[in-house]
């Protein structure tokens, strides 16, 4: 196959991981960083080449009757369970995986470059690059997966690389517990994913994506209407699989790990927790979309979860004070947009525009959110704090960063001609097409998005001008500003990509038409949001405080993220640890082990009881003997008489 060189995008990073992981300590920091970045550069070139060949290549069999084909470039058997259930490791190229190739390699490469400056002088620099390579490898493996089990494998691997990178500053307790939390929450979700895979494969007898999705109706009907607890087993399977996706994509109520994950280095947040790994859930649903499209119940669950999360996260983002937390909640909210968009996509409405919109938003969001995070990194680097209170008036000190951040904010707020406008508009079109309720709901959230993003922007770059002392903030080095400029440019132009020509739910070409009523409303709402933020936050004033005091209860609840973390804390510590684990451990020690000890003790005390008779004193023996002899004599006499 012509495209089989694509496999190099997996081999190079994994080799780099092993190389840097094993001999990295012996290299100088600079060498390790540059080697890692170069390898990533090569990977990016190959990924681009593969994606472009896929989209624009004229090879026989790539496009048949206007439908882009799914190309299995490579499929090696990795583990054989039964004759049909085989885990293969392979490379599947189709529109969404080719698009993800571009997203991941671009962001990853930018982050590699950026980290050269950002992580300069950090302890464990080599380790950092090794983990970045591991992450890139796993993420690419995930999107290129040919079967659901391969996806699960790389799914776990991205989970662990995220764990390692969040806990990069492993001496800080906050980082350690954040990494632990991230891993365990996503692991819990993965349990759902795994069980979903088991159910799905039990009925369909295959892991392979192409055979699963090519005839979804048949796949669904293999279950033969089997039900479990009132729902059809396929709905169970698909919902459980979505649970895995919800965990990785931080959907409510499994979102709690993502804000804490901001304890990791900022470039990592940009790469993993904004652009790539957190959209894995969206990708998963998109990958299995043909099956989901048949099962309406599962899609409805997805829509509800997505829509609720979008609002929830936007509400929380409005009051957070840590800039990375704001961005984290904004990420959750935006991913929820994509999820909702998939939920409302049904093939009969506008050729499943929701699917295309979701992927489009995934693409643009990855670019501008990575940009925002990298800007945040540059700001944190300059002022040495994550808190907004330590910032203000930075536009004078960091012009490039300022412009880049503004572009990011405009893009996410949905102002034309920036990228976010186009993709979000498509999502709204899809939502309105499904039902006006979802449309209005998402429009409100879009307005909130504009508000909190500009709140953040004004707080950082305008507001007041705190005394920075002799630590005057200054523009970041070239290695850090280059990615900002690049991603900023991408965020400006990405919206003009005719996305419908590349990615659609049935892989046919779809023309994007801007629906100006929807677009007009969404622009108006965004402008209102921005105006509100301008009024409240452009200059230092006490309006925000007054509002916060007026709605004290709501504000506090939102600030504490509606007490979701406390709830989890309660469940894990008070219920699982104190009410399940402790009693079990007690039961084990006292009851089970106690029974064994009791057996031993009974034997022991019985022996001691018998031992008293073996006193060693001949006198006692004689006494026994005498009594015995007399007794025998008496009995004999009685018997004789």
């Amino acid at each position, binding site marked *: 196959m012509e495209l089989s060189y694509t496999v190099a995008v997996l081999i190079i990073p994994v080799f780099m991981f092993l190389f840097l992981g094993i001999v990295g300590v012996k290299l100088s920091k600079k060498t390790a960083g540059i080697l890692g970045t170069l390898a990533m550069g090569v990977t990016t070139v190959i990924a681009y080449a593969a994606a472009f060949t896929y989209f624009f290549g004229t090879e026989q069999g790539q496009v048949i009757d206007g439908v882009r084909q799914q190309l299995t470039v490579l499929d090696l058997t990795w583990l054989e369970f039964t004759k049909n259930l085989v885990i293969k490791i392979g490379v599947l190229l189709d529109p969404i995986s080719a698009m993800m190739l571009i997203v991941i390699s671009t962001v990853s490469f930018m982050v590699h470059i950026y980290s050269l400056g950002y992580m300069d002088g950090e302890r464990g620099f080599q380790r950092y690059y090794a983990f970045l390579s591991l992450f890139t490898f796993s993420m690419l493996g995930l999107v290129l997966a040919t079967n659901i089990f391969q996806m699960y494998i790389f799914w776990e691997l991205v989970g662990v690389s995220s764990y390692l990178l969040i806990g990069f500053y492993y001496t800080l307790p906050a980082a350690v517990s954040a990494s632990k939390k991230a891993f365990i929450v996503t692991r819990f979700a993965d349990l759902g994913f795994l069980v979903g895979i088991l159910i799905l494969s039990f009925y369909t007898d295959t892991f392979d994506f192409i055979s699963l999705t090519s005839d979804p109706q048949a796949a669904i009907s293999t279950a033969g209407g089997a039900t479990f607890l009132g729902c059809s087993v396929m709905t169970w399977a698909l919902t459980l699989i979505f649970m895995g996706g919800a965990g990785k994509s931080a959907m409510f109520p499994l979102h709690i790990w993502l804000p804490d994950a901001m304890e990791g280095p900022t470039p990592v947040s940009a790469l993993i927790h904004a652009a790539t790994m957190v959209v894995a859930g969206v990708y998963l649903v998109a990958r299995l979309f043909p099956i989901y499209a048949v099962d309406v119940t599962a899609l409805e669950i997805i829509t509800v979860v997505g829509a609720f999360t979008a609002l929830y996260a936007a509400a929380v983002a409005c009051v957070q004070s840590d800039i990375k937390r704001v961005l984290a909640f904004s990420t959750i909210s935006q991913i929820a947009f994509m999820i909702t968009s998939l939920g409302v996509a049904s093939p009969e409405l506008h050729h499943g525009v929701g699917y295309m919109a979701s992927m489009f938003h995934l693409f643009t969001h990855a670019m501008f959110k990575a940009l925002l995070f990298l800007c945040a990194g540059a700001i944190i680097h300059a002022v040495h704090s994550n808190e907004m209170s330590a910032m203000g008036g930075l536009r004078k000190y960091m012009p490039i960063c300022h412009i880049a951040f503004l572009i990011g904010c405009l893009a996410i707020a949905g102002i034309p001609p920036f990228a976010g406008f186009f993709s979000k508009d498509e999502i709204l079109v899809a939502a309105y097409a499904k039902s006006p309720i979802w449309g209005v709901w998402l429009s409100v959230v879009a307005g909130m998005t504009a508000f909190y993003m500009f709140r953040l922007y004004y707080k950082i770059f305008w507001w007041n001008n705190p005394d920075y002392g002799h630590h005057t903030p200054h523009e970041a080095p070239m290695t850090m500003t280059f990615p900002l400029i690049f991603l900023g440019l991408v965020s400006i132009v990405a919206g003009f990509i005719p996305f419908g020509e590349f990615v659609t739910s049935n892989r046919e070409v779809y023309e994007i038409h801007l629906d100006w009523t929807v677009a007009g409303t969404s622009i108006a709402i965004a402008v209102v949001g921005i105006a509100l933020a301008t009024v409240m936050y452009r200059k230092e004033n006490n309006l925000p405080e007054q509002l916060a005091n007026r709605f004290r209860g709501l504000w506090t609840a939102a600030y504490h993220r509606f007490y979701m973390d406390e709830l989890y804390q309660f469940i894990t510590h008070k219920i699982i640890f104190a009410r399940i684990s402790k009693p079990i451990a007690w039961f084990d020690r006292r009851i089970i082990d106690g029974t064994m000890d009791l057996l031993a003790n009974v034997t022991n005390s019985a022996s001691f009881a018998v031992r008293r008779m073996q006193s*060693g*004193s001949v*006198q006692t023996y*004689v*006494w026994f003997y*005498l009594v015995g002899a007399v007794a025998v004599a008496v009995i004999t006499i009685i018997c004789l008489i």
Partner: protein
Amino acid sequence: MLMYIIPSMIMFGCGIYGFITRKNMIAILISLELMLNAVDINFAVFNRFLFPGQMEGMFFSLFAIGLAAAETALAIAIVINVYRAARNVDIRQLTKMKF
């Protein structure tokens, strides 16, 4: 015959009683001797009255007397050694070698 047996039985009973109740090793030894001698008497008596033509009983009591002498010597030697080691011949105190 009964006139001979009754004292020997009394002697034997005293021996048993002494053996069981005494705590002093010498006293126990004396009780042991008492029982042995009671048995010797019985040997002689039964031989004399039941099998007058034979001499086995007599020989056996003579043999037993000889043995008893040797045994007593050995026992006394042990007692003396125990006394040297433990400064005591009370069997309630001599539990050092017991488990």
